[in-house]
């Protein structure tokens, strides 16, 4: 059944956005961010952490793209690079046709308004010494969105309504709220700037199950009502599958697979994606699944392996993987391309373990 779904991706809800081909809202081209390692007596540069090493993707208006991967794969660094919290090493970040990675600080501000962020930790993402109204008013004032103080108050009340918190709670301090409520305040702060894109950096990962469901539903509603695009950075594949239109899987600083949701979960084309899917514990006792247990740990991003970065753990590794780096073919226009950076797909189908229905979820 899902075979037909994966081969006819037009039935996937994600492609409804791709059907209007135009400029993507956000385009990231060959993004690299290397952090210098300092050490020695004089504090000289002794090496580089290849945190993000050549990542390209795009997000359409109103679309959710999820960036998944394990800790240290560079997914959060990508988010911060798009937010321009630091300068990138090389590559391009293009927002609505304008390069933002090279903009000087002075002309960056209007672009900042369009990309906002919700962080993971509901406790450290709100300044403990600011009242909720000051937290929410900060972006409104910075971007000059309110005409006068009455307009500001109206906006604050609307924001509280939007995230389903009582209006009079604006006078309270962050520590008076629970984790889930704080995350709502964080979302309200992101919405205050009236952005086009919100980066959710593990935005629901730290929350309890029942609260997580509340926030996931809220994000989904907001996206539908406001037409927001989301870059949903997460390690939780079940939530990602529930939320997203498309998925990009990262491993050690690179994207190894990009696909529309159903296509990816039905037939992952990269061995890492396949292993990830098989590793997630499913709340169904006795669910008979073939499990691929990867050997060893993720290699260090200071000295990534040659060839395919996954070859040290790949169950299907062969000689070519150790020397030649597989490339992610540039996605075709229309946002329904399913591409994976893996040499297996150059083999004849009968020798390719990932041909056809390779999803461990069947």
């Amino acid at each position, binding site marked *: 059944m899902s075979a037909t779904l994966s081969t006819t991706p037009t039935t996937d809800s994600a492609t409804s956005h791709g059907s209007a081909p135009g400029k993507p809202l956000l385009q990231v081209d060959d993004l690299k961010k290397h952090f210098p390692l300092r050490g020695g007596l004089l504090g000289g540069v002794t090496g580089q952490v290849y945190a993000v090493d050549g990542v390209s993707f795009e997000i359409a208006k109103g679309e959710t793209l999820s960036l998944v991967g394990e800790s240290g794969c560079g997914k959060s660094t990508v988010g911060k690079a798009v937010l321009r919290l630091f300068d990138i090493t090389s590559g391009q970040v293009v927002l609505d046709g304008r390069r933002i990675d090279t903009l000087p600080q002075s002309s960056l501000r209007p672009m900042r308004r369009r990309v906002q962020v919700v962080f993971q930790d509901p406790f450290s993402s709100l300044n403990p010494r600011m009242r909720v109204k000051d937290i929410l008013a900060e972006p409104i004032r910075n971007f000059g969105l309110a005409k006068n103080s009455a307009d500001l108050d109206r906006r604050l009340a609307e924001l509280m309504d939007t995230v389903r918190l009582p209006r009079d709670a604006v006078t309270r301090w962050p520590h008076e709220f629970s984790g889930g409520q704080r995350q709502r305040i964080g979302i309200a702060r992101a919405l205050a700037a009236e952005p086009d894109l919100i980066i959710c950096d593990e935005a629901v990962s730290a929350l309890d*199950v029942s609260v997580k469901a509340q926030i996931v539903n809220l994000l989904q509603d907001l996206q539908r009502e406001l037409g927001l695009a989301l870059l949903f950075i997460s390690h939780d594949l079940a939530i990602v599958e529930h939320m997203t239109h498309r998925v990009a899987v990262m491993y050690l600083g690179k994207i190894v697979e990009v696909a529309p949701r159903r296509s990816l979960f039905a037939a992952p084309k990269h061995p890492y994606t396949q292993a990830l899917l098989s590793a997630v514990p499913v709340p169904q006792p006795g669910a008979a699944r073939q499990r691929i247990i990867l050997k060893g740990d993720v290699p260090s991003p200071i000295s990534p392996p040659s060839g395919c970065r996954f070859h040290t753990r790949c169950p299907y590794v062969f000689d070519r993987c150790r020397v030649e780096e597989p490339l992610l073919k540039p996605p075709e226009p229309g946002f329904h391309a399913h591409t994976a950076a893996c040499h297996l797909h150059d083999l004849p189908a009968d020798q390719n373990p990932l041909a056809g229905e390779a999803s461990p979820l069947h």
Partner: protein
Amino acid sequence: MSSSTGAEAPLLDVRNLQTHFRTPDGVNRAVDGLSFHVNAGETVAIVGESGCGKSVTSMSILRLIPEPPGKIAGEILFQGKDLLKLSDKEMRAIRGNDVSMIFQEPMTSLNPVLTVGRQIGETLRLHQGLSGAQAEAKSIEMLKLVGIPAPERRVREYPHQLSGGMRQRVMIAMALACNPKLLIADEPTTALDVTIQAQILDLMRDLKHRVGAAIVLITHDLGVVAEVAERVIVMYAGRKVEEAPVRELFSDPKHPYTQGLLGAVPKLGSSLTGEETRLAEIPGLVPSLKTRIDGCVFAGRCPKVTDLCRAVAPALEPKAPRHTAACHYAEKELMAA
């Protein structure tokens, strides 16, 4: 299996456990009247959200609760002996020997200035009186058991030289070194990445068959519960609200909180089966444990709440064979004889 315990007596029998803490703004009733048992060789999961008392329960069993500000009441019978009545010295002889524990954060639970071998060896020397050389040999054997490559080399390394998954393996090796009868695992895989989590869960399943220790698994992750546990205890606000064999709990949850929890988790593969629905929300917040709750602890968030629930706290009642729930309105099935 062992002849020392009675035929039917459980390995661990916790009766009416209460663990309360004195805080400046009231008494926190972190665990309030919890009873459960664990049979030899069985895996029991205690599941619940943060603040439900599941970790406090595990700390209480090993008497790791600082008193004051804490206080433990009730009975914790391990092999028939009440752990709460033992002297500190007798308790030390049990900790790490008959009952051992695996913590969530492997980095902070290991001593950074001692080699892996010394840390595993220490429990062996302490509880089993092994010599240094014997302890090291046994340490290497334990590291091999938990699947650490090149154990002869690793035994001389320090915790910071190991990855997170390796450290958790070392923790497991330490916990199993003295052949414990009961292993308490408090969120053992929560801090780990999903592929590493899969390795550790696989290891725990494998070891269970080989070592035969009973496991109390404390977790918030229903997926982990489904994969590892045989029986499940659901805790909410310091109390047990439901208990059932794992399959039954997932297929036929009786308590509205359990039903809410299961509905709140998206299932992997949902986009393929077409059973995509909005996630079920449990509205509201966990009640404060510093004020006494007279009725049902879940009344404030329950979709089926009535005045009766607010007035009368429901007793844990059997709702089906081996399946109990604390809800006035949970459906009862006819019990066999």
